[in-house]
């Protein structure tokens, strides 16, 4: 699994990307793993009271996980994950 960070998440993670050979089975497991790896600030940015953080945009293969099952979204080793804060422009 290839995980990419963008905008403020690059600063929080201290790296642009990260590869996992054996990812957890779902998004909940992945976020727990990443929060453990990067610490409390990262955890607060991705999780809120056991739910997806309100300012997190998490894409799995380009699809927003809020449309595919949220924390229960299943994962496979071949997935691409993109981690964004809420962004906008135009």
């Amino acid at each position, binding site marked *: 699994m290839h995980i990419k960070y963008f905008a403020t998440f690059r600063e929080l993670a201290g790296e642009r990307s990260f590869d996992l050979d054996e990812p957890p089975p779902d998004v909940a497991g992945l976020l727990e793993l990443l929060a453990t790896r990067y610490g409390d600030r990262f955890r607060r940015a991705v999780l809120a009271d056991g739910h997806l953080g309100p*300012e997190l945009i998490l894409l799995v293969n380009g699809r927003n996980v809020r449309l595919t099952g949220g924390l229960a979204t299943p994962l496979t080793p071949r997935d691409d994950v993109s981690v964004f804060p*809420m962004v906008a*422009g135009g």
Partner: protein
Amino acid sequence: MYGWTGTILRVDLTHGTVRRERTDRELAHDYIGARGMGGRIIADEVDPQADPLGPENKMVFAPGPFTGTFAPSGGRYNVITKSPLNNTIAASNSGGTFGPELKYAGYDAVIVEGRSRTPVYLWIRDDEVVIRDASAFWGMNVHDAVDAMRAETDEDAKVACIGPAGENLSLIASVMNEMHRAAGRTGVGAVMGSKKLKAIVVVGTGPVTVADPDRFKSAVLSCTGKIKANPVGGAGLKAYGTNVLVNILNEVGALPTRNFQDGHFPNADKTGGESLAANQLVRPKGCYACVISCGRVTKTDNPLYPGMGEGPEYETAWGFGADSGVDNLDAIVKANYLCNEYGLDTISMSATIACAMELYERGYLTKEDTDGLDLVFGNAQAMVEAVRKTGTGEGFGKRLAEGSYRLAESVGHPELSMTTKKQEMPAYDPRGVQGIGLNYATGNRGGCHVRGYTISYEVLGQGPPMDPHATEGKAALDIAFQNLTAALDATGSCLFATFGIGGPELAEMLSALTGEEYSLEEFLRAGERIWNNERLWNLKVGYSAADDTLPKRLLEEPIKTGASRGEVNRLDEMLPEYYSLRGWDADGVPTQAKLEELAL
């Protein structure tokens, strides 16, 4: 009147006269200001069949009621005219500080009509209004002209002016203010050029009166707090600018690439807001009364592309980036600077170059046509040179200056112009985001994202998330965004205020400011009225339902790579519902009942 100044300035360049008129109270109430009021004035006073570059066309420079107050991010004005690019009502919106200065000088709008025989500029200092000779400034780029006219008038004057592109009647010319801010779209700069009007230079010292100062202050503070509390309005846009969108649009597979031949650009990250913040950004910058500061003061030391200025915004970074196959951010920044200096719309300019690149690669244009430029995708130097040629009107630049539709049509391939109603579409691929495709197709001024920014819900998670690949619910979504945006534009507010506040807050500020009570329903009805006024104009100039469409490529050729691979836009699933919900008949014509409801 409160909020409005109560005065409109009418300038006849043919006869060299200036007169003041009272702002019509009913017009102000029903159309609010800026895009709304200006669009109504154009519809009432200009023959839909008029030559947009002839003396019979008029221009309206109009701030809105919020402009010049401390309403958060409420410092904008519009340039409204019949577009020479596509005959629609052009309402091109800009920030900076020019709009507030017009209000302080005492004007709800400046209407410019006729045509001067020689170059002139309009000098306004409150009640003093003079048409002055601009022969010495004609031919100057925007930066030099602004400096020179300030030296002749007042060093603190605010200036809206055209560059050589507008003078040369380029159909993609913009009107620039504060050197780097643009009323960019629909070719408004060419209309100014056709009137031989180089600039409007203004100093204003008067107040904007407020009907209920305590209520207005309370509403403004509440709105400011909400915008600052929003993660995007409060910090995100200031840190990375609008160009932060490059990566997320690329990740969802909706970053139009190489003239919309694909929806994914492998090197996108090199051109995004993160890269700009790390390499070219000097500091963020806001417009008048801005609490967001999305503007970018930038610098590039690259010897090939040296310069300092402002930009790029997301659309510009996309157009000179992914859409042109270029991943050199210094070159993108330089191309932006040149557009600002010559007075060119960065979206239409870049998209026209992308179109030219495809025409060149397919052999429909040759080196003989391009003055020797090897205009292949990814050739950054050729791209920057093409901008320069367009700005100066030199050689192949003359053809680029007419926009992509006319260029592609001239070689027998109009289908390769990525336009709707002949205006270039911006940086969201309608195959990867269905709702924005419907917005492009129905846009009253052609391809445009800021008329109905459904991306907020479909991609950015601002509001209830909606599947970008689904068509269900998109007609209602588009209409809601289009009506709200029309009303917001008319107030003089920045669209980015909606990253924090919505219709109820805008209606409350407007009511407190003007003393005219706008319920949410009435505020949104004003937006719907503005939209339908623009639609009726389009029908009069000859547009029909057949023009509410997208380039064939987007309807038939699936995206090749990335997260939206295999998708096309399914416009036919959305358009009939859109007409029905709008209260229009199957031909896209507003019904009599709808017209009566809107008092049109």
